[in-house]
């Protein structure tokens, strides 16, 4: 655990307590249909809980004070996400308060900031990022077109697996204003309202009970002021947004892995087989030691990335990819062992182990999977 200042320590304790009391794993379970998948009518989160989170100021942690936020920094946001990750709490905090807020902070015009940051900070508006069009993370492959038309733009194309897409009011969307699929040049980010004409949304029923969306844009007209950042130069801005998104998501995954490990450790200390507490079997002790070691590496990578972002370190891209890749591998390892070491009961939908296992795959894939981030880290480090 990084050394925290008093405010950070207080925030962490607050988040831990709230997640434990208000958003235990049973809260996620309530979103599930019997046997898995989300309830047909589910929005993929608990609106009442989101209101409470906003009231506690978490939606504004990354919003500058002049726009009604606390500008508390990414390590602070990471602490909250980690605690929510422990109980697999489903909320738009990452999509809106981290990703969308970051996009506006880094690329928003004064007007755009004034229009959206206060609403994001008080939770009245939910934002998200809409990038990938295929099943694999590949921003440079953006094919959704933005054509200039009478002073504004017309958008046509599709976005898949938009996080919290069904509940988002506003989305930062990557479009191609020039160049061909595969080129960084010619990418432009747009700030679009999801209620606008020309945009239709379809919910995706995901194994983690979240509800990402498929966006279909046909002849969707937006004004020139919808452009976030510079026309055709969106790739660098998008990278900067994704680095912060991945560091934040890695923090959530660290929390999930930590809790999965602690729950499993408790089971090892109580379950009896062959007239012995199974935690006394050396093979399981050594596996637990390995899980603990992987958790240490992951925590260090995650906290290093978050601190680097707060300090404006030049190495943020590599450090974020390191954090996300480590978190992905560790969470798979530990959530799989959580099932394995619980035995048959861990295979049942009634037990929590499966929920960690499922969330692990979704979180790993989001904003680029472990393999994607390993390759990116390798390119940045010259391998």
């Amino acid at each position, binding site marked *: 655990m990084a050394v925290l200042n008093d405010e950070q320590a207080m925030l962490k304790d607050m988040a831990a307590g709230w997640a434990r009391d208000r958003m235990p794993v049973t809260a996620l379970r309530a979103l599930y249909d*019997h*046997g*898995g*998948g*989300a309830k047909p009518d589910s929005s993929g989160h608990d609106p009442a809980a989101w209101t409470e989170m906003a009231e506690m100021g978490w939606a504004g942690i990354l919003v500058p004070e002049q726009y009604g936020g606390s500008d508390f920094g990414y390590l602070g946001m990471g602490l909250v996400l980690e605690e929510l990750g422990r109980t697999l709490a489903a909320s738009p905090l990452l999509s809106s308060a981290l990703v969308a807020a970051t996009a506006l902070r880094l690329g928003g015009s004064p007007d755009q900031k004034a229009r959206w940051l206060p609403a994001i900070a008080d939770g009245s508006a939910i934002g998200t990022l809409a990038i*990938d069009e*295929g*099943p*694999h*993370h590949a921003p440079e492959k953006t094919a959704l077109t933005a054509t200039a038309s009478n002073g504004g733009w017309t958008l046509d194309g599709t976005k*898949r*697996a938009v996080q919290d897409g069904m509940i988002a009011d506003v989305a930062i969307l990557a479009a191609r204003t020039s160049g061909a699929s595969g080129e960084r040049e010619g990418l432009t980010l747009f700030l679009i309202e999801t209620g606008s004409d020309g945009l239709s949304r*379809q*919910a*995706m*029923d*995901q*194994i*983690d009970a979240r509800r*990402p969306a*498929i966006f279909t844009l046909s002849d969707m007209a937006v004004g020139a002021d919808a452009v976030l950042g510079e026309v055709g130069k969106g790739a660098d801005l998008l990278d900067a947004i994704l680095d912060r998104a991945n560091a934040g998501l890695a923090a959530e995954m660290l929390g999930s892995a930590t809790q999965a490990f602690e729950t499993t450790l408790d089971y090892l200390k109580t379950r009896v*087989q*062959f*007239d012995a507490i199974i935690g006394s*079997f050396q*093979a*399981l002790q050594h596996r637990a030691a390995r899980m603990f070691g992987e958790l240490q590496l992951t925590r260090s990578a995650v906290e290093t990335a978050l601190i680097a972002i707060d300090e404006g370190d030049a190495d943020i891209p590599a450090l974020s990819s390191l954090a996300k890749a480590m978190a992905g591998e560790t969470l*798979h390892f530990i959530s*799989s062992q959580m*099932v*394995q070491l619980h*035995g*048959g009961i*861990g*295979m*049942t*939908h*009634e037990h929590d*182990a*499966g929920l960690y*296992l*499922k969330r692990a*795959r*979704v979180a790993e*894939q989001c904003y680029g*999977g*472990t*393999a*994607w981030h*390993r*390759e990116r880290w390798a390119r940045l480090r010259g391998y």
Partner: protein
Amino acid sequence: MMDAKAMEGQDFRQEVRAWLKASFPPSLTGVSGLVFQSDAHAAAASPDYQLWRRRMQEKGWGVPHWPSRYGGADMDEAGIRILAEEMTAIGAFNPIRSFGTMMLGPTLLEYGNEEQKREHLPPIAGHERRWCQGFSEPGAGSDLASLQTRCVDMGDHWLVSGQKIWTSGADQADWCFALVRTDTSRKQGGISFLLIDMKSPGVEARPIVLISGSTHFCEVFFNDVKVPKGNLVGEVNQGWTIAKRLLQFERNSLSEVKAEITSLAPLAHRHVGTDALGRIDNPDLRARMIRNAMRHEAYMATVRRFGQESKGGAETPISALKNLWSEIIQQRSELLVELLGSNGLGWSGDAYAEDELEATRAWLHSKAFSIYGGSYEVQNNITAKRTLGLPA
């Protein structure tokens, strides 16, 4: 120069080939090699499949080595090998193969009395009676011998009370072969092997919902169930010996897998894309896929090798094979989901293709492979002590 026996073999081979040619519906060719269960289920429901099963049953070739009076074909090792080779040659498969033919059947042949054999073997050979296995209990998982389901001798019948868990297909099954406690004073030595009609009063099967959404496994409750005295297999308190033998058959079948490996490479090309050299365009994923596929290929060669060696009487290290198998298949399932990207994360709905949803469920289901039929840890203990002779 070929001896008489080999000549016969040749004649038999011709006979088998001719019969298969005439009897195996071409529409079923390669069905046993289907990647996706949904396709396999569809095939199994086809009239051709029913026809094929009936024809094999009439020949008794679903259980060729069983005596014909129990529905088999009295076939010897050489004949079985020829039959298998000829079936593989034309992409045919055994449509009778089941839990019953692979596990209970062999056990009854070894420990059942004549009456039990005549009563139960033919319906198994005919794929007409479904069985389930009542072994595990909530407090007796890896430590099976600590099971508590009581079986009391009431003179003219047994009275059974207790709870079983992880009983696959119990809600569909006609009969259950169960381990019950007939002596509370000894652990292994107080267990008996009992055949229970699932329609008996007091039997209740409740499906368990697994993380994959499957409801195939059940909890089974026995509330003062009356069981005829004749349904106890072998001697009273001999159940543990019989169960160990049966579990060997089970591990055998678990480590058995279909001969062909369906490569994931074409799927990866389609879903991930290829680089300038035509390689899967994700170096880290590709490296892991390659290593897994090489191990899978070596594993298949290992199954074939022990198939050969066991004919020479060598003992197959089943526990080691089962752990290799579960590790390789679990990794393969994860790799399949990974290469599908966000399309591999769906539970239901038309946002996902049928085979994508199935790959996701299959990955979740694969987590059970290292738990059931003796956990990964238990199998390693067995390998260390039984196969390697390491001290307890």
